[in-house]
């Protein structure tokens, strides 16, 4: 095999990694290198060092160790049956790239995943070696995210958690049936078992033993997963139901949704059309409502009969339009729970309302100054000197928010 230049490998192996939506680098332990013996820091929230023209944050060096793979997942550009160019980094190359990019302030750290070569264990142990070298030889204190190989031995995952801030395993598709159809070599039960193991180990790492000693930290930024949206026929209700189970059962920090993206050299088993990216966006909005706004899946997906979210308007607004009888709410009296359900009010706005109304009654202008988005909210609230009148019940309320029909492009 001919040797590829480093830049060619980097091109191939970052191209192959871009279908992973996550680039988060937040929520790990606080560390720095003020002692002068290492490199790097993590301080709570991560930093997006750049943005690509696809609007995505670039926070980590997100690469595959190799894009050779013996599996045949239909949605994946690296599957064994694709004719894409192949490359493989050495352990040393990944370590050097990470350190040199980090020193120039390009990145917060490394997100490493890999195609499966030889065997899951062999692949996973190479990945662990990279993380270990970064931590032990280079004194690297930045962020490391490793994507675990589903069938790798539990000991390897256990070791990975000692060096990585975050571990992830992608469930890939919202249903077991979908996994069977599109990722025939993968086993949903194995994936769930691996997630369960990580959860248990994290819990153990958080407890002191009877001697009062804390065990070594284990993946302090927790675990996450990704689901591909639009490749199989799952509805949004199915997808969000699965997310709710994943958050509950495995204590996941995040579920990522990735609108299935047409890939070079796509398999005949999959659609070649662009799915609407807005669907992914609506799923993220719904996901937030589930986690931080006290909604449940049934409420969010009730607005339409087909189990999908309304693509034209955000899910909270869709819910409010369905439940107009509950509005308008009085910002000076309503409960926190109800304020959180007002379209245009975020958790921060609600916090400010609650804080300020202890001192005095709020007017419309006060809300503006607090940063509330009143364009949406004004139809659903009353404040001192403000009532929406008939606005709340007007039949064209939805039309005010839905975008005008899109112009067809010549394509």
């Amino acid at each position, binding site marked *: 095999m001919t040797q590829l230049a*480093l830049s060619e490998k980097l091109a191939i192996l970052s191209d192959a990694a871009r279908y992973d939506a996550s680039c988060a680098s937040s929520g790990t332990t606080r560390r720095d290198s003020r002692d002068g013996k290492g490199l790097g820091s993590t301080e709570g929230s991560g930093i997006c060092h750049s943005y690509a*023209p*696809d609007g995505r944050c*670039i926070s980590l*060096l997100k690469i595959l160790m190799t894009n050779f793979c013996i599996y045949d997942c239909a949605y994946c550009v690296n599957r064994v049956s694709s004719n894409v160019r192949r490359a493989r980094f050495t352990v040393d190359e990944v370590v050097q790239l990470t350190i040199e990019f980090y020193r120039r302030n390009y990145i917060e750290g490394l997100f490493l995943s890999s195609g499966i070569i030889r065997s899951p264990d062999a692949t996973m142990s190479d990945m662990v070696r990279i993380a270990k070298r970064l931590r032990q030889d280079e004194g690297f204190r930045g962020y490391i995210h490793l994507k675990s190989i589903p069938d790798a031995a539990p000991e390897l995952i256990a070791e990975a958690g000692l060096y990585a801030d975050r571990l992830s395993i992608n469930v890939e598709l919202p249903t077991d049936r979908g996994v069977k159809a599109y990722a025939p070599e993968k086993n949903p039960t194995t994936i769930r078992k691996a997630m369960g193991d990580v959860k248990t180990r994290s819990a153990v790492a958080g407890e002191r033993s009877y001697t009062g000693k804390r065990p070594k930290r284990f993946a302090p930024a927790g675990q996450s997963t990704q689901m591909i949206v639009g490749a199989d026929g799952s509805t949004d209700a199915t997808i969000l139901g699965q997310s709710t189970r994943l958050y509950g059962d495995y204590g996941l920090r995040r579920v990522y949704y990735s609108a299935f993206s047409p890939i070079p050299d*796509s398999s005949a088993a999959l659609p070649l059309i662009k799915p609407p990216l807005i669907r992914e966006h609506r799923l993220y909005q719904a996901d937030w409502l589930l986690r931080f706004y006290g909604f449940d899946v049934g409420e969010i997906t009730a607005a339409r009969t087909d189990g999908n979210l309304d693509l034209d308007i955000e899910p909270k607004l869709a819910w409010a339009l369905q439940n107009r009888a509950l509005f308008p709410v009085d910002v000076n009296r309503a409960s926190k729970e109800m304020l959180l359900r007002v379209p245009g009010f975020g958790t921060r706005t609600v916090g400010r309302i609650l804080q300020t109304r202890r001192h005095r009654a709020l007017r419309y202008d006060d809300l503006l100054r607090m940063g509330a988005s009143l364009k949406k909210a004004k139809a659903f609230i009353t404040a001192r000197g403000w009532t929406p009148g008939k606005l709340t019940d007007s039949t064209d309320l939805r039309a005010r928010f839905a975008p005008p029909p899109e112009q067809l492009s010549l394509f």
Partner: protein
Amino acid sequence: MYTVPLPIIGTDMAWRDAAKRLTGAGVRPADILWDYGTGMGELFATATPLPPPSRKVKAPKSFVQMADVVVWHKDPQRFARLYGLLWRLRHQPGVMQDRADPELAKLRQMEKAVRRCQHKMKAFVRFRDLRQGGDRRSFAAWFEPTHHTVEPTAPFFARRFADMDWMIATPDVTAQFVDGNLSFHPGQPKPDLPEDAAEALWGTYFCNIFNPARVKIQAMTSEMPKKYWKNLPEAQHIHDLIAGAEAKVRKMQEAGPTIPPERVQKIKDQLRKRQNDQ
């Protein structure tokens, strides 16, 4: 009338000290002229030296924290606005909880702008390797922040890049970190930094992590405004990436599925055998 000179380096402490003395002595906001960075203050201020420090002055912690950020804003009115609020706080201690008070809202907005600017500085400073040899590696960057954010943000870089020497030069202040010591110096014109081969690799990464099937230019520019592009090595690729995106996606679609390489069947058979054996 007091004219208070404020230095460009150490503005926060200088303002705080002066504000404490002035409120302590009951000097009204209208009687103070804040003179930032001109050095002219020295000429006029001689007539009225600042009142002596007073121990009685108290301000809520939330005010002090906010003031420590707002002093770095570029608005010349920032010092007067802060003092105006400090003056009101003597008799209206509850103002800090009133998120809708117009004066406080304005200051909070300025605080937010400075924090955002600090955040962007942490994100967008790009070091170049000076390749000077020696025990510690050394790097340098040129950066143009919107507000006066170098001084409050430099400690972040000191915590992160402690095992190397570095310099961040900007038009009004230059931060230097040598052998573990952080210091500030007057600003300078853009220095000539040596080329750094890592920038080409970073550009390669930037181009390939971009997914041409999902162009969202507005989402990019709202977080990475154009004013920063000239100091970001990767930004030179943006134009071509956008221009070529549609053609790339179309090519993918037209190419359609290909025939799997021959080795596939063999690999699959082996794998199946192994999975069955387990």
